[in-house]
């Protein structure tokens, strides 16, 4: 029985992540465009509808699938093919241990809202994270191209050294949390006791090393376009390149998910008191829904107001409407529901399900916020030089992390 539940959960979560990836890609292209004061992708259209570039993703996906899959002759074939798989596997595997909400108690069944609740928790993430290097290394080396080899060397060196920094930062965190199970860590962060505030240094270090792990902007020397063409995946064409690309974004998503869980209190919001909600779902709903409805309606109207008929003289003008109108409708639906619910008592499972849903929503919101942060950072900061990168890693972050550990342990000793 648990197996089935586990299987369902696994499928759901992976699907969720895979869905996230195109959104992230779109958001990145759109965001970077606006940062660089240009309009993002807006050409791909289905039946004239552009949806502000979302369609572009579909175009990319189709392109990547259809491109001819070239394997360089001298490359060691098997490893060349396996490398991207490893990359994507690593990215998706870490999700398995990430909890989205508190364990759900439905009729005697406690369903942990995560694929596998390992008591080693974060260590699992660390372990799998360290495997990420393989994907990069094997890929780059097997493509038998000097640029890619250089890229791989740099990438793997970078990832290995920042892994240490990440590990040490986490140790700083463990000192405070006292446990490695993620669910417990999150449940400890009620209200404003987010670890980001109690352990600011650990948070900052973890975040930067996360950037390094995913070869994201300030540290994206691996595929620094200016010098190394495309770094370790220059030789990769269609599908395999896609896998690498997806792996990267999956990694970002998972990374930000973990950051939000460990440091930003996961599903805790200062205001919300889940226990209360779980007990009195009706009251919660009756209060929450109207607020949401009002928000949705306001947003929808704002979009519709932007409608100009002759701006582009084609389907694009109506896009704004496509977005704005559904919001207004949802708003009204919510108001109706609250009115309908008023006065009736909901079945017992509704409370916990509602709480779970709410918690998932909060986690997702925070993750999206961090993904945005990732993308925003990518297009603002310049790229590190390699020695600066290494210096920062070894001489900067590791000493600071050690310092942090020492300080926290000293503090802990004095406090108790």
């Amino acid at each position, binding site marked *: 029985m648990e197996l089935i539940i586990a299987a369902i959960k696994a499928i759901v979560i992976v699907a969720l992540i895979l869905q996230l990836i195109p959104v992230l890609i779109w958001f990145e292209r759109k965001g970077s465009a606006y940062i660089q004061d240009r309009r993002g992708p807006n050409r791909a259209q289905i039946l004239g509808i552009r949806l502000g570039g979302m369609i572009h993703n579909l175009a990319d996906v189709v392109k990547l699938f259809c491109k001819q899959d070239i394997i360089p002759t001298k490359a*060691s074939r098997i*490893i060349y093919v396996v490398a991207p798989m490893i990359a994507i596997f690593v990215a998706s595997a870490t999700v398995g241990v990430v909890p989205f909400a508190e364990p759900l108690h439905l009729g005697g069944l406690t369903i942990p809202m995560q694929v596998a609740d*390992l*008591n*080693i928790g974060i*260590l*699992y993430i*660390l*372990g*799998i994270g*360290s*495997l990420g*290097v*393989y994907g990069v*290394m*094997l890929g780059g*080396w*097997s493509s038998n191209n000097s640029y890619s*080899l250089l890229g*791989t*060397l740099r990438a*793997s060196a970078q990832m*290995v050294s920042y*892994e240490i920094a990440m590990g040490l930062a986490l140790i700083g965190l463990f000192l405070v949390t006292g446990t*490695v199970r993620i669910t417990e860590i999150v449940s400890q962060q009620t209200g404003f006791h987010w670890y980001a505030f109690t352990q600011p240094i650990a948070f900052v270090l973890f975040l930067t090393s996360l950037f390094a792990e995913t070869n994201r902007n300030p540290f994206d020397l691996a595929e620094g376009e200016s010098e190394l063409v495309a770094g370790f995946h220059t030789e990769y064409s269609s599908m395999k390149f896609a896998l690498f690309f997806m792996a990267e974004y999956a990694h970002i998503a998972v990374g930000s998910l973990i950051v939000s869980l460990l440091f930003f209190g996961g599903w805790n919001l200062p205001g919300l008191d889940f226990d209360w909600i779980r007990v009195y779902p009706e009251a919660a709903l009756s209060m929450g829904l109207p607020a949401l409805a009002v928000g949705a309606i306001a947003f929808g109207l704002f979009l519709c107001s932007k409608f100009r008929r002759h701006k582009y003289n084609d389907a694009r003008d109506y896009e704004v409407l496509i977005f704005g109108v559904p919001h207004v409708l949802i708003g009204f639906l919510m108001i109706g529901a609250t009115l309908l619910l008023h006065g009736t008592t909901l079945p017992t499972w509704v409370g916990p399900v509602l709480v779970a849903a709410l918690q998932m929503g909060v986690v997702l919101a925070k993750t999206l916020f961090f993904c945005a942060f990732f993308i925003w950072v990518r297009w603002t900061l310049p790229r590190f030089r390699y020695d600066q990168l290494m210096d920062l890693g070894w001489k900067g972050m590791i000493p600071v992390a050690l310092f942090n550990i020492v300080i926290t342990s000293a503090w802990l000793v004095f406090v108790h």
Partner: protein
Amino acid sequence: MIEAYLFYFFAVTTVLLAVTVVVQPNPIGAAVSLVGTFFSLAALFVLLHAHFVAIMQIILYAGAIMVLFIFVIMLLNLEPEKVKLRTIAGNRLVQGSAALYLAGVIALAFFGWRQFFTQGVVANEMEGTIEAVGKLLLTDYLVPFEMTSVLLLVAIIGAVILARKPVE
């Protein structure tokens, strides 16, 4: 039941991968299969409820040591070696027999000591959790723990000096 199957599965994969490591002419191939071996071993550890050890295995072996190996293989871009199983003084028979003899001896040793493990079958609930191992590590085995730190320091210095480019 499931555990038995899992055990056999992982045991077979470990042994097979180990054999490929030794037989594989191409070092990279060997390295990757070794990583595979470590993974299946980690799985075996999990089966033995030694979670902390399993994850440490992954982090340390797969994550760190193998990375070094592959790093070195890449750095030295070694061409695959023609595996001539001809060994020292040609007589594969000798070391073959030595190996078999050793196996027999080790097996005999363990079976011989059977009485020590009469309750071998009974699996107890001692979970190899990180807390239990951690507590034990820092109480009974504190001194060796500190010693290992010294050992690591030495190893680091040694590796650095050895691998450093000779100063002209």
